[in-house]
Structures are given as structure tokens and as C-alpha cells.
């Protein structure tokens, strides 16, 4: 079979537009869609997200080690396996009826899966837990990344689906992050895989032959997916808040700031600050109403404004501030960090390369025998410019 030349084939959906009249609107839309999803992108952003996300995911799963059997142990767990089995297999699913009566039952059970539904022996649970930790560590450093990414995603979901009553927003965000990581080549840069690739190429083709990192359509799809998903998250969070009277009165943030279980009210300075605010109502109103307005503006405005190039940095900085506030005041540090990972998907690759180059320079000087520009290019594992 004679291969056809790739350049003769239509690769854009817009190429098949039916008529000149429709071309202007439909073709424009299709071209935009094509450009949005299928423009090859530099995978450096995914590489950075893999490292940051990997460290966070490793930390989250290490934290299970403190009380492993209470989370995923068979009968020792808070939710024992028999309860979990009943809930995942028999929980009734209802939907509104097709007439005007009450809900009707449309099914039962859910599609949860986890190795910890089946492995309950404490020794085996520990073995699998530490094996998962090892794989997550490999994913973080970027070794055999395509495989370890999928296993890391599976590991995350094994814990999440088994400990449904112990999970919260953090775990949902982690699952989202890993889902898109699986799609993109997150090990193509800043990874051991990349280092091995360079080493292999140098061995085969000579020391000056360093393979370049190819822009990838899958990298673009993964990053675009994260960005769109992030906008869905923000829009849902923002619009649902509009149902709450306290968000309209401006007092909602008080119930976050003064919630003893989340806020650092056991820290005397923080408590004194709250008392001071409460004793000066005008100040209290400015802080609370301002905070509520900022939250609503970010959550409802970001999904629309972040696509505008000039406003992107403003929106990214606003989201960073919002999540730093959530981390510091409400104590949800890990959750905020994972959210920030999704925010970082909006940062252009040029900015990431510039940042890594600037960070790499002083680091490189610290390495014995490496100085300045030569050093950066001479160490492929650290050389961000060639990452």
C-alpha cells in the first residue's frame, strides 16, 4: 500500500465547510475549535505540573500511612468493607418521574472501584500502599512516566473510591489533575525519562546530538482540558453562591474566618485580629464585604475574562491570591496547592521556561565545576533550557 503524503490530507475540520455562505460563521467556529484544541503545545507546563502535583500527591498518600487501616483496612476501617459494598452496590438511584409524581428509581449502586474493596488483609493493604507510594514517587521524578501516570491516577482513585466519607475537595481536584496528566506527555520534559532520552541519543549519535522537545497536540489537549475544567469549577462555585443570602449581605466570609474547625482560631494573634475587627464594625464590613465581592468576582468573572490575553495575568494573580487566602485562613493548604496547579495550566510555556532558566542559573552556579551559561547547557538533567 502506497502511503499518501501527509501534507495532501485535510487535517482541519474547517476544510470541509459546505458553502461560502456558511464558511464565514461555521468555518470560523471550526477553525477556532481546531486551533484551540489541536495546536501543538510545548509540554514544559505539563512537566512542571507533574513535579508540583506529584509532590502534593505523594504527600497526600504518605499521610494515609499514619492511620492506614482506619482508611482502607477491611473491617478496621471507619467505613468497613461490608458497609462500603452495600453502599456501592445497592444504593438506590432516583430521577424525577416522567409525569408530575415523585422521583422514580432508575437504578442502584455506583461505579466505584478500588483494590481495597477486595484486599483487606492488613499486611497486603500495607504492601499495596507502599507499592503505590513508590509508583507515585517514580511519577514525580518522571521515570517511565506514561505508565506511572496511569498507575498514579489509579492509585489516587483506589483511595478516593474506598474512603468516600473521608475525602473532600482536595481529592476531587487531585483526580481531575491526574485525569488530564494521563492524556498529555507530562514526562516529556523535566523528567528522568527526558534525561535518559538525551543520554541515549548522545550515546548513539554523538555528544552534540540532543533531541529537541517536540511540541505536542496531546500536551495542548491536556492543558486545554485543565483550563476548561477549571473554568467549570469556578463558574459552578460562584453561581451556586448566589443562592446564599449571606453572600449577598457580605457576611459569608465571617462564617469561614470564625469557624473554629477550619480557621486558626487557636492562634492568639489571629483571634485578636478577629476581635479587633468585630469591635470596629465599619472595618469588619469592609473586610467581609470586600472579601465576599472579590470571591464572587473571581469565581464568576474568571471563566470569561481569563481567555482575554491582557487580563489573563490579572486573573491568574487573583486566583493565586484567592487560594492563598483559602490556604492560610481556612487551613486548606493542600487543597489550595492542587487548585494552584490547575491555575498554573494557564501560564504560557515561554513564561515557565524563562522562570526555570532564572531559577536554574543560581542553582547551576552552586554545582561544583559548573559556571554560567556553559553549566546550564552541559547538565541535561538540570538544564531547563533544553528541558
Amino acid at each position: 500500500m502506497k502511503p499518501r503524503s501527509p501534507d495532501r490530507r485535510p487535517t482541519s475540520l474547517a476544510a470541509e465547510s459546505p458553502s461560502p455562505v456558511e464558511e464565514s460563521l461555521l468555518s470560523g467556529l471550526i477553525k477556532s475549535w481546531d486551533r484551540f484544541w489541536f495546536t501543538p503545545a510545548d509540554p514544559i507546563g505539563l512537566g512542571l505540573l507533574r513535579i508540583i502535583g506529584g509532590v502534593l500527591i505523594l504527600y497526600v498518600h504518605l499521610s494515609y500511612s499514619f492511620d492506614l487501616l482506619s482508611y482502607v483496612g477491611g473491617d478496621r476501617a471507619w467505613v468497613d468493607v461490608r458497609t462500603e459494598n452495600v453502599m456501592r452496590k445497592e444504593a438506590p438511584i432516583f430521577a424525577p418521574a416522567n409525569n408530575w409524581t415523585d422521583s422514580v428509581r432508575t437504578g442502584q449502586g455506583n461505579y466505584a472501584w478500588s483494590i481495597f474493596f477486595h484486599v483487606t488483609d492488613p499486611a497486603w493493604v500495607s504492601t499495596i500502599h507502599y507499592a503505590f507510594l513508590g509508583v507515585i514517587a517514580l511519577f514525580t521524578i518522571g521515570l517511565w512516566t506514561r505508565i506511572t501516570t496511569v498507575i498514579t491516577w489509579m492509585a489516587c482513585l483506589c483511595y478516593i473510591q474506598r474512603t468516600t466519607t473521608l475525602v473532600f475537595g482536595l481529592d476531587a481536584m487531585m483526580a481531575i489533575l491526574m485525569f488530564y496528566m494521563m492524556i498529555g506527555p507530562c514526562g516529556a520534559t523535566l523528567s528522568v525519562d527526558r534525561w535518559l532520552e538525551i543520554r541515549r541519543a548522545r550515546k548513539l549519535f554523538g555528544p552534540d546530538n540532543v533531541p529537541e522537545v517536540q511540541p505536542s497536540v496531546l500536551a495542548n489537549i491536556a492543558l486545554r482540558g485543565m483550563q476548561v475544567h477549571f473554568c467549570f469549577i469556578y463558574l459552578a462555585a460562584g453561581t451556586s453562591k448566589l443562592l446564599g443570602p449571606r453572600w449577598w449581605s457580605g457576611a459569608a466570609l465571617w462564617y469561614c474566618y470564625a469557624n473554629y474547625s477550619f480557621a486558626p482560631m487557636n492562634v492568639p494573634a489571629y483571634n485578636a485580629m478577629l476581635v479587633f475587627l468585630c469591635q470596629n464594625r465599619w472595618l469588619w464590613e469592609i473586610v467581609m464585604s470586600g472579601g465576599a465581592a472579590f470571591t464572587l468576582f473571581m469565581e464568576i468573572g474568571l471563566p470569561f475574562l481569563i481567555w482575554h490575553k491582557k487580563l489573563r495575568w490579572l486573573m491568574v494573580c487573583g486566583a493565586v491570591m484567592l487560594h492563598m487566602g483559602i490556604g492560610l485562613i481556612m487551613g486548606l493548604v493542600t487543597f489550595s496547592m492542587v487548585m494552584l496547579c490547575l491555575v498554573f495550566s494557564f501560564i504560557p510555556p515561554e513564561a515557565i521556561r524563562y522562570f526555570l532558566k532564572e531559577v536554574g542559573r543560581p542553582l547551576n552556579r552552586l554545582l561544583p565545576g559548573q559556571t554560567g551559561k556553559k553549566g546550564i547547557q552541559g547538565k541535561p538533567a538540570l538544564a531547563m533550557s533544553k528541558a
Partner: protein
Amino acid sequence: MARDAGDPARSGTPFWMGPWPRVGVALGMVVLGCFLRAAGGEDPKVGPGPEMSLVRFLLIVAAMILAGGAVERMLRRLRPDENSRLEVSSLTAVASLVPLLGYLSVPPGWDSAQMVLVAFIVAGVLGTGLILLPVIYRKAVFAVLVIFHFGGILTATLIVPAPGQQAPWLPSHAWAQFYRPYLGFMYLNNAYHFYSPEPGPATLMWSYVIYEKEKTGELAGEWVKLPDRDASPITLHFQRLLALTDSINQLTSGIPDKRFKEIEYWRREAGGRIFDNAKDLPRFPKRPGLPEEVQQQQQLVEQLLHPHPNMIMARQYQDPQPNSKMLLASYARHLAITHERLKDDPAYTFHSVKIYRVIHHILEPGELAAGFSPLDKTLFHPYFQGEFDKDGKVVYTPDWLQFTDQSFTALREAKVPERVLDKLNDMKKTRFANKKELLDALPNDKEVREYQNELLKYSVIPTQVLVNDLGAPLTPDPSNKDAYWGSFPNNVTIGGLPPRLYATDLDPFLYWLVPITRRNVTVDPNNTQVVLAPVDPDADLINGLELHAKYIPAKPKEGDAPLEAPR
């Protein structure tokens, strides 16, 4: 200069390390797994779980990794020409046989592992098709997948009903009948309604674990309060326990007014009249292990047993949803395992645990400015969730049973004049094992006897609560699939009457607020705002929670009617 690292010819990888041999080895492994399962004879004791030997488990895992690696390596070689697409898609198709054969070698008990393998088969088949397609069609299929994926995400965000409203019809159907498998499998079900419609107080779980000394029967107890910031090694552990305690805060939307009146009646009866009128009842028996302060506070019993003075009654009763009840039973079993013996004296072993769902209310700004502490005890609102044994079954306290029989209130619904019912108030027993027992117990009064058939009709409803293996109350109709979930379909009747049997029927405190209140509060004269300030925070506290948790009911006396044990 770009190099093709995936091309074995150019990267120096020997043929036997290439994708095809890898898939071949992977297939061999799963075939061996199938053979082992069919042949039997494996030692199940060395496996990671039931019906799964170690060898088979390792074979399946290794085969999946090998096949995945081979596909990944082959995908790196993918070029737009047909030959390349054909080669790569062929390998992907053959690699899809690995999860298929893996499925056959996994025992049926490992249903969720089978689900994952099916997902890999679907991904393999879909991938094969996608690779075969020319780029233009591949993009079109991708567009469909993107719309499907984000349509699901949108659906998940829309199915949460707005306050006081039903869930939107279209998204609910789209979720229940179309998206549920995908979103559930990928854990993309979150609606992202964080702090919506507005932030609220945290839910805590306080448990009073009761221990019994094996030989003497002496009782002792200790509090286990979750979550505890000081006891958690890291913040994430604390936050996970907060999520755990929040899971028991799934409440039913409300109960019919008529039903609530019944429950309220029992609650008030238990708190007031019964104890007032039956002074010969043993209360707070002298027992070792019962704190002295509890003995001294007998005069507060009435206040404990009365509802909270400053809250409307409807808000003081909060019935958890069936899944929360099941979780409570599971948490009780966990506590029974982790608190098998009293730390200070191992001779005491686990007896039962009283669990409270505690809402930690948030101080209003004016209260904080006035000097109230965010840890003021009255900010904690504990709702009694039941006393559980080590198997997670609700322990019904016998002396409550004596006086809270549902047939007593059932009588009020009968067509019996009030004056006749008044005559029944003198009856010492209101719970009867059979008709004869009731007839014998009825006062020897002409008018009462006239209505005895009517009374009989309403008083012989089988008084028992059905509890499933997990401690959740069941409907009395075991053939109904909803039975596990404690709901009562309208068409179910017992003896021609609608079932009215809830766990609450046997313990009038179940799901009720156990108030922590103050007796005396005054307006602080130094504060211009109207804020109630305690005179003496500790002295004035009526800690109903402590009293209720440490209250140990008397065992039934000899001659009492035998109690029907919950099934």
C-alpha cells in the same frame, strides 16, 4: 535535531524488547492466569484477597503493565500514513486482548477489578478505531468525546437542587441514565458547590465509649471526640476526620407533621410526665464507675429530659438519612475495635458506644466582640445518634421501652373518647406482647370495655424495629428493595395499618438534640449591644450531654413483660 526515540531500529533497542514481543509476553501471562484459575489448586492463603492467588495477581498486573508499555512505545511510532496507522492500531487491538483475558482470570468477587479491566478493553477498542481513522475524522471523534466529557461535568454541577426546590429535570435524567457510569468511574461527580449556598458550622462526632468489667459488671466510660486537632499528626488527617464527621450530617428533608407530633409527644413524655409520675422508677442507680457529679445532679434530670428552651421543637429533631445511619453503625464498629479495652484499666472491655452528631455553631461577630469564647459549651449542639454495641446494632434501653410504646399513642388515633383514654393513663404498662395481655391489663371499667375492640385494633401492632445487618432501620417489608434504606413506601401496611415503626419508637431521645444550656443569663450592663452574657459560665451550665451520656438505665425488673428483641 529531532530523533525518533521510539524506533528500535534507530534507538538501538533489540527486537525482543520491541512492542510486539512485549504484547506477546503479556498475552502469555494472562493466558497462564486463566489456566491457573480454571485448573484451581492455587493456595488462596498466600493471595492478596479472596479467590485470588499471589501468582495470578502478579501475572495480571505485570501483563497489564507490559501491554500498556508496548502500546505507548508503538504510539511513539505513529505517523499519518496508512501503513503506520494500521500497524499501531493492530498492536493496540491485540493489546486489548490482555485486559479481556485478564477479565477472565479475575474471580467474580473482584467485581471492581473487572470493571477496571472492562474500561481498559473499551479504551483499547476506542483507541484502535481512533488510530485507524485519518486525522480529520479523528478530530471529529475527538470533538464528540470533548462534548461528552464536558457535558458530563456540566451535568454534575447542575443536579444539585437549589434550596427548597427539586433537582432540575433534564440534568437529573442525563446524570442518572446516561452519565452516571462515566462520571462515577472517573470520580468526576463533584458539583463544585464549595461553601454554597453559604458557609455553615462544622459537624463533629463525639462518642462516649462505655466499658464493662468482665467479672463484676462495673461500668466506666471515656469520651472520644472527633476530630481532635491535637490528636491528629498532620492537618490533613484532621481535615479527613472533619469530612468523616460531616458524612453523618446528611439529614432527611423532614417528616410528616402527624408523625412529628407523635415523636414530640414521646420526647416530652420521656422528659417530663413519665419521670414525674413514676417516682418509684430506678433512676441513676448507684453503680461503681458512675461519676459522683452525675449522682449529685439528679435534680437536673428533668431539665435534661426537656427539650432546649430556646429552639423550636422541629429543629431539635433531625433524622439522618439511611446511608448516614449505616455509616454510624460502621463507625461504631470501628470504635469497638480501636477501643477494645480501657487504657487505664484493661480489665474493662468495650460494652457499647453512645454517638452524638455535634454541630459546633459559629459565634456571631457581636458575641465575639462581647468576649464569648468560640469554645463556649453552649455553642455545641449534640444530637443523639444512638447507642451501639460492638456489632453496630442500636442498643435499646429497656426502661425506655416500658414507657414509650407506640401503641400508647396509637390509641390516640383510635375513635375512642378522650375520657376513655384518660382512664388508660393509670395503666402501668403500655406495651403488650399479645391481645390477651392487653385485655387483662385494661382497667375494669364498663366504658373502657365497650371500646376494647377498638383499643385492641390499635394496640397489637407488632412492636419491633427491623434493623439490617449494618444497623440501619428497615421497612417491615423485606421483599421491598428499598428496605435497606429505611424508607416507607406509601402502599406498605401491616395488619391494615400504615407502618409507623422507627428506631425512635424504642428510644425517645434518638436523633433529638440533647441540650447544653445555661440556667441564668443576664444582659451585660457594660455593653451597649444587647448580648446575653453568662454570670458564671461553669456554674450555670446544664450539660445535658454529660448527663445523657453517663446515664445508665436500670435493667428491667423481674416480672416485667419480656421485650421483643429487634431482629
